[in-house]
């Protein structure tokens, strides 16, 4: 008895009992579709989290931060130098495992204004061109700073789109996109020329929502216009990034810092940030150690700095994903199990119904193995049809879940999860079929033939 025949017989059996088979398959259908749905949700969550992570600068990035000196160095606290350009040059020359070093000198409080409009940027910082890559910025319009801008401390700036939206007008509201290159804005009272603008950063979901809104304009709302305010939205990481203003580092130093905003009017040469990126994420700890060693020298052995990495957030994200996957997996596994029990039940009923048939088949020479395979194949065929139907159903389910899902992330159906769920259904069919198939194969042909 070849396999093709067995499968054909299996299909015929299923077709002969359409409704019963459908009910049986329902368990598998639900199990498979919930498995795919769960995996789509976790995948969506994962993507959303990773997007946010990328908006914050990626995994290979580390931020140095100021720290209180450790207890045993308390007596040296007064001579702690803080992070300065000295560190930056030292790292640049000596820390060979670093790919990118981006010093940042921030100005706080910061205010950007133009005519009667003002906006508080998320950061107004003096940077090297390295910042562009460091913070994964994409310059869409204009240019970034050149060495000459840096050298001459030119009053030029590169802005995020949210700054443009506030000072010049939001393209979503006024209908046309203003690219304010060459325009002048005031940064803390000083005139700066805009020479570049970043692209608009947003999550995939927001992008889709925005495009949808553009194609299907909402009804005009009456009443005063309300500002969203930053930090109130759910995608604060993107909003924050869009509210960036960069100026050349030297400009920041000469125009704002050297005039003495520090203590007692003494110019404060401390950098607000030294961000570094490693050459190879694999040697992340080694590279950090190297950077630390270099900075220990420039800091005369005083440990007044530390490193903040996103490795922790990556682990958090991974842990959250693992948990979500685990709980979803358990739920799906239970429904698959129930589906499997359903199949076993129906196969037992089916062989009881067909004891005589099995007896006839045995009498004319079917071996135990042939009968075993026949029943097993039928069970697997039911499970596989259920699996295919489940995969089909999962598309609808994922759509539905997308509407109801508590997260903002669109569920993503992956081919891998579909294949996995399908294989699961096959395995369930196989396991569920073994017991009924054994039972059928072991039937005594004489008794089976006499069975009424």
């Amino acid at each position: 008895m070849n396999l093709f025949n067995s499968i054909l017989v299996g299909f015929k059996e299923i077709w002969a009992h359409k409704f019963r088979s459908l009910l049986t398959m329902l368990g598998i259908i639900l199990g498979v579709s919930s498995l795919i749905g769960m995996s789509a949700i976790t995948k969506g969550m994962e993507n959303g989290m990773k997007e946010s992570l990328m908006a914050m600068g990626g995994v290979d990035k580390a931020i140095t931060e100021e720290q209180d000196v450790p207890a045993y160095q308390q007596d040296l606290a007064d001579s702690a130098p803080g992070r300065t350009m000295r560190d930056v040059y030292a790292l640049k020359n000596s820390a060979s495992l670093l790919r990118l070093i981006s010093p940042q000198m921030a100005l706080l409080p910061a205010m950007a204004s133009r005519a009667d409009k003002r906006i508080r940027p998320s950061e107004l910082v003096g940077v090297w061109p390295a910042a562009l890559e460091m913070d994964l910025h994409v310059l869409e319009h204009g240019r970034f700073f050149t060495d000459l801008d840096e050298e001459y401390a030119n009053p030029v700036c590169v802005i995020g789109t949210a700054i443009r939206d506030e000072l010049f007008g939001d393209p979503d509201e006024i209908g046309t996109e203003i690219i304010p290159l060459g325009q002048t804005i005031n940064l803390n009272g000083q005139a700066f020329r805009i020479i570049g603008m970043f692209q608009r950063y947003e999550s995939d979901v927001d992008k889709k929502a925005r495009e949808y809104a553009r194609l299907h304009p909402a009804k005009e709302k009456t009443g005063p216009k309300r500002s969203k305010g930053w930090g109130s939205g759910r995608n604060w990481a993107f909003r924050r990034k869009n509210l960036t203003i960069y100026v050349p580092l030297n400009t920041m130093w000469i125009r704002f810092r050297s005039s003495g905003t520090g203590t007692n009017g003494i110019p404060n040469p401390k950098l607000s940030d030294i961000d570094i990126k490693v050459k190879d994420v694999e040697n992340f700890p080694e590279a950090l150690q190297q950077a630390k060693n270099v900075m220990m020298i420039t800091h005369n052995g005083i440990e007044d700095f530390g490193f903040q990495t996103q490795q922790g957030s990556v682990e958090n994200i991974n842990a959250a994903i693992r948990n979500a996957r685990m709980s979803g997996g358990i739920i799906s596994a239970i429904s698959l199990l129930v589906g499997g029990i359903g199949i076993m039940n129906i196969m037992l009923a089916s062989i009881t119904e067909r004891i005589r048939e099995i007896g006839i088949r045995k009498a004319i020479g079917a071996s135990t193995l042939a009968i075993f395979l026949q029943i097993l194949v039928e069970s697997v065929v039911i499970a596989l049809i259920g699996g295919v139907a489940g995969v089909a159903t999962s598309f609808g389910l994922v759509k539905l879940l997308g509407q109801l899902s508590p997260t903002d992330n669109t569920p993503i159906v992956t081919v891998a999860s579909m294949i996995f769920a399908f294989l699961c259904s096959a395995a369930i069919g196989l396991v569920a079929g073994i017991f009924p198939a054994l039972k059928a194969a072991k039937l005594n042909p004489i008794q089976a033939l006499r069975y009424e």
Partner: protein
Amino acid sequence: MALVELRNVSKIYHLGGEEIRALDDVTLDIDAGEFISIIGPSGSGKSTLMHILGCLDSPSKGTITLDGTMIHNASARQLASIRNQKIGFVFQFFNLLPKLNVLQNVELPMIYSGISGKERKERAMAALKLVDLENRSKHRPMQLSGGQQQRVAIARALVNSPKIVFADEPTGNLDSHTGEAILNLFYKLSKEGRTIALVTHDPEIAAVTPRRIEIRDGKIAKNVDNKLAGLGGTSKFVIKE
């Protein structure tokens, strides 16, 4: 050497400590080409004998040789293969699979012996021709009359060219006219050289066969050649020579 040789075969069941001898020390030879009937009242052990002869069951004691192969201690797998290759069964209730059509029913034994689809179809059609049903190959068993169903079953029994065909009350579920046709078919097949064993409780049917074995209480009571004993003409069934 005979086609089937039974030597001191016993089948013993234990029911609640009581020993029941369904077959008790039976010794029997069936030669190739014989047309034989096994007769006996119900409970006499004739069905047990047929099951053991037909490799559906194994004896408790004794030895059986079928076509030179010892089958009394064969494994279930070997028995299945012997049933498939060397034995054909015809049952009282036809035992066709209702979901398969006539042709597929006849093909069934060949599926288990791994014969290719094309040859299967050719041989099944040849077997159906033998029983005059080649024009019904696409019908379902339920669409046929009892006699036709039994002829399909006979075609199925013959399709693997078995050494011996066992028929268990083949006319028991048919009216006497149709039964006579079936018996005539068996007679014709026997004339063509096939070995056939009829199992029945009806002496009228048994009288049709040249050789008759009577089973009583698990033992062979008589071993009579009908023609030699002058009993050939006692059957109400008319066999057309």
